[in-house]
């Protein structure tokens, strides 16, 4: 009877340990990943959209102005540098502060930095030479 109790205890302890590891280490990361990937307002999504829009504006042969407002409920810090755009969402949830995303684009754009914005504009003009301009504001 004593042997059964011991093995039961070992099994329960092991089970609890594995579940503890899963819920403490793996689950939060996966949960954050899924919510991050599938949320329209996530930094990852906004950075991907912006980098895509900046690059694709280069496909316009004369001039184009693109306005993009991912959400009016949240704001972001945005940094454009070395042909990358870094977007950090300003959410009230603590972990979201770390959920910034940096995405590359393929045209030459001046360095730019702005805080707490949610409206972005990408502009391309061709006047003998292609020039690109990026701007952001709070809406």
């Amino acid at each position, binding site marked *: 009877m*004593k*042997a*059964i109790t*011991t*093995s*039961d205890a*070992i*099994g329960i302890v*092991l*089970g609890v340990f*594995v*579940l503890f590891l*899963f819920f403490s280490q*793996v689950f939060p990361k*996966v949960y954050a*990943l899924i919510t991050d*990937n599938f949320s329209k307002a996530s930094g990852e999504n906004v950075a*991907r959209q912006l980098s*895509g829009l900046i*690059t*694709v504006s*280069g*496909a*316009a*042969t*004369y001039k184009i102005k693109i306005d993009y407002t991912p959400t009016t409920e949240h704001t972001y810090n945005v940094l454009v540098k*070395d*042909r*990358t755009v870094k977007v950090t969402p300003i959410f009230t949830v603590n972990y979201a502060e770390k959920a910034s995303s940096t995405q*590359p*684009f*393929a*045209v*030459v754009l001046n360095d730019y930095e702005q805080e707490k914005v949610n409206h972005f504009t990408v502009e391309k003009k*061709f*006047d*003998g*030479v*292609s020039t690109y301009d990026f701007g952001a504001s709070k809406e």
Partner: protein
Amino acid sequence: MISEQAKNKGLVHTMMFILKGLFAIAIIGLLYWLFISTILQMHVAINENTNERHAINLANVLISSEKLAYEGEVTCIGTSYPCNHYTTSSSCVSANCGWIAQDQSCYGTPYTCDNYLYSSSCTDAGCTPVNGKVMRGILDVGKLDEIFVRSGSLNLISIKDIGIGYPNSFTLVRIIDLEKCNSFDICDGWIGYLSGPITLQGLSIAKFGECLSEHASADVESFFRLQLTGPALAWWNPLDLKNCAQNNIPSSFSSIFSNSQITSEGFPIVIKYPNGDMHLGRIYVLLGEFS
């Protein structure tokens, strides 16, 4: 005897419970592994899609850029300087005026602005140049020769940053003229490497490019590779490509190369030659990104 049986029974029960515990752990481990591997597969798929999207965007930007695309003629408008504006004989004569050496003066009637065909000469004459429109998808042979090399001189390829390219990336651009092909379906064209700014320390795209140039060959094998890999990669033996990446890109960097149906089939373009000939062609953009 009875105590011996009880002891054995206890051992069996203990073993059974240990086995049950191990089985439960194995099941949990298997589920965990399946879950993680699915997440990893999703990540790889997302990265491949991102890379593919980048390659398509890049090809679109390249065929629309004034760096490669044909620009309509420059038109020159406004009023040109009068002849007495010019103070040297050469500038005076080139403006269709007459030069008097004794007086060092320029006289006559200058060309009107619409006589100037180039932006610089138009500005020099006091007129205003109006740039031609960029013709998307029509690539100018003069511009292609400046940026890329003709297919015959593969070992002269160097990596260039023309202001179009993703950071920490390597772009292989292959342009073929579909109206200049031999009996083996190997077509004339251009090939070149483009790169964006490199911000990763220790990453040398140049060495990778040099390695590719050294191993590029337009031999009989390339004809067979053409059927398998498409024109973008036909110049290289797959083993050489692998070795170039392994030997020149540090293993600490992860890399992903686009090689899907879309990039292997290329984008349709028109190639404009200086004599006015227009040939049908294709542009292939193969993008390697490092992180």
